[in-house]
């Protein structure tokens, strides 16, 4: 004997929906629904708080005491440059990791993606040890070229690249691994040398992932705080990026901090949405 619950009632609307989708009930089981709602609340409440507490009436006044424009411009251009640098050096590294085999490759992959799990502050300390005036490499840069990196916009870019590039590398490497290499073989039989294959076949094939990786990288660079403040400090106009400006504003003027946060939020959303429309919608065609 099979036990079963009483038959349920289906409205005409639900019947039509199931028929259109095909398949069984799509109603969410209670044990999944409750945690899902908690997750939504947890993610959205802080954002709602930000919007509710925002000094909407006197936004301009709240921002006037800050270096908002300077910080925003610095944040935008350093994040963009570090994304560019990541593309130029990170994509070739992703290719090497995905398409070649050599001893120690697994270790290398683990090491280059270490910044993903490393606390950014630790990354900043590591950068200091390498590039400060007494650092491993920085010593010679200072001695030979008179070049001092820490506490300059260059340091901001380096800190952001250090933290953000691994996101691009793992995204692109995954795409390269799963890309159909049959196209590359076809290109070779059509007379394309290896660099031509990379340029005209590999890159177009992984373009959607390349775009996604770049966006991820840019967003991470824009929000970078720990490594930047450790390695580059917080000189207004020089190294004080938006997240750092928000942090300092919070100590002195919470309204300014909220206003700055909103500006950063708005800019990120606008840029990400416009990039997504451009890059990430469906297959490249």
């Amino acid at each position, binding site marked *: 004997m099979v036990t079963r619950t009483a038959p349920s009632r289906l409205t005409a609307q639900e019947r039509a929906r199931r028929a259109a989708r095909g398949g069984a009930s799509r109603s969410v089981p209670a044990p999944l629904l409750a945690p899902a709602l908690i997750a939504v609340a947890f993610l959205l409440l802080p954002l709602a708080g930000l919007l509710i507490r925002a000094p909407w009436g006197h936004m301009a006044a709240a921002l006037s005491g800050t270096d908002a424009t300077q910080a925003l411009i610095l944040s935008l251009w350093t994040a963009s440059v570090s994304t560019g640098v990541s593309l130029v050096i990170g994509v070739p590294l992703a290719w090497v990791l995905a398409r070649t085999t050599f001893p120690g490759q697994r270790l290398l992959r683990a090491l280059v993606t270490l910044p993903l799990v490393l606390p950014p502050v630790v990354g900043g300390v590591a950068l200091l040890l390498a590039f400060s005036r007494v650092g491993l490499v920085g010593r010679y840069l200072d001695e030979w070229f008179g070049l001092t990196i820490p506490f300059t916009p260059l340091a901001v870019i380096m800190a952001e690249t250090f933290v953000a590039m691994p996101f691009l590398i793992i995204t692109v490497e995954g795409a390269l691994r799963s890309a159909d290499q049959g196209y590359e*073989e*076809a290109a070779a*039989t059509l007379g394309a040398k*290896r660099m*031509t294959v990379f340029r005209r076949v590999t890159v177009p094939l992984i373009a959607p992932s390349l775009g996604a990786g770049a966006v991820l990288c840019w967003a991470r660079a824009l929000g970078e705080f720990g490594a930047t403040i450790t390695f580059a400090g917080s000189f207004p106009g020089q190294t004080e990026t938006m997240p750092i400006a928000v942090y300092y504003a919070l100590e002195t003027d919470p309204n300014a901090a909220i206003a700055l946060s909103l500006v950063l939020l708005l800019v990120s959303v606008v840029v990400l949405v416009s990039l997504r429309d451009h890059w990430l919608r469906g297959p490249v065609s």
Partner: protein
Amino acid sequence: MTGRGSDGLVVDAEVRRGEFILAVGLAAASSQVVGVLGPNGSGKSTLLSAVAGLTPVAAGRITLAGEILDDANTGTFVEASERPVGFVFQNYRLFPYLTVAENVAFSPRARGRGRQAARVAADYWLDRLGLAGLAGRKPDQLSGGQAQRVALARALAGQPALLLLDEPLSALDAGTRLDVQAELKRHLADFTGPCLLVTHDPLEALVLTDRLVVLEGGRIIQEGSPAQVARQPATDYVAKLVGLNLYHGRADGSHVTLTAGGSFVIPDQGQHGEVLAAVRPSAIVVSTKRPDSSSARNTWPAKVTGLTLLADRVRLDLDGQPPALVDVTPAAVAELSLSPGSQVWLSVKATELEVYAPSGGRQDQR
């Protein structure tokens, strides 16, 4: 006929892919279409891959027009991109992000021609293959037959000296296959270099090729003209492909004792020892009563074990000594009220039996 001269393709090599070893010796002359027929896993694609330079040979060498493409002894290896080869892949592998015209222009461009010149070359081939109207389309907007022609145009636009086709029609539905096949035959006739065509479809092999090489388990098991291979299959696999009953046996003048049981009377041509006997399924007659026996006719009882409806006839699977496949009309199935388990008598004229030595189907076999 075999084209072992300096103008064609000569493969005399061993290729290893993991555990699998392909060891073949074959040649294709200019303007000759050599079909490579074999089941999945027989090494057909590995062969093309080696000729194209995508897989190096483990031993032996491959030459084209007397020039070495790959030689395991001396280490000479011409990279795939440097070989004058046009490759039409099984699923075409058209670049999905390029238009038809850009796909066809890819090879001239990759081989160093300017954008304009490449476009002119592409236009020429698009025109020649009747694709001019599709130049601006993307591959996903093409029908199977169109994609096949674009793949051919793309391969030919590189002006290859050798053409490789991997199951060129397998991705097509049955409806368009015959049209595309006829068209492909025309274009292959225009190609002046040697051509290797890999397939597991016997009809394709018979229609499109000048010579057939049958591969099984990485070895060539039969080589000859398509007609000869179809008439005198060397193995059960080939017999099944071309739809013949094949029997192994020992001949003694006018008599063959079959390995599968039973014996046949054959026209006495003085054959002795190991032979193969092939007979068409439509040459065997089915009756419910024992037919009048004559010396020129072989008769034996059998039991129906299966019936399969083919286009306009029914193929009977029969268990007896020997077992046989027999084609009859649907009307005959009804008249004789045949069903699995029916006991019937089979008969075949001695003159319908094609009897040949096991090596008889092979030509130019090394």
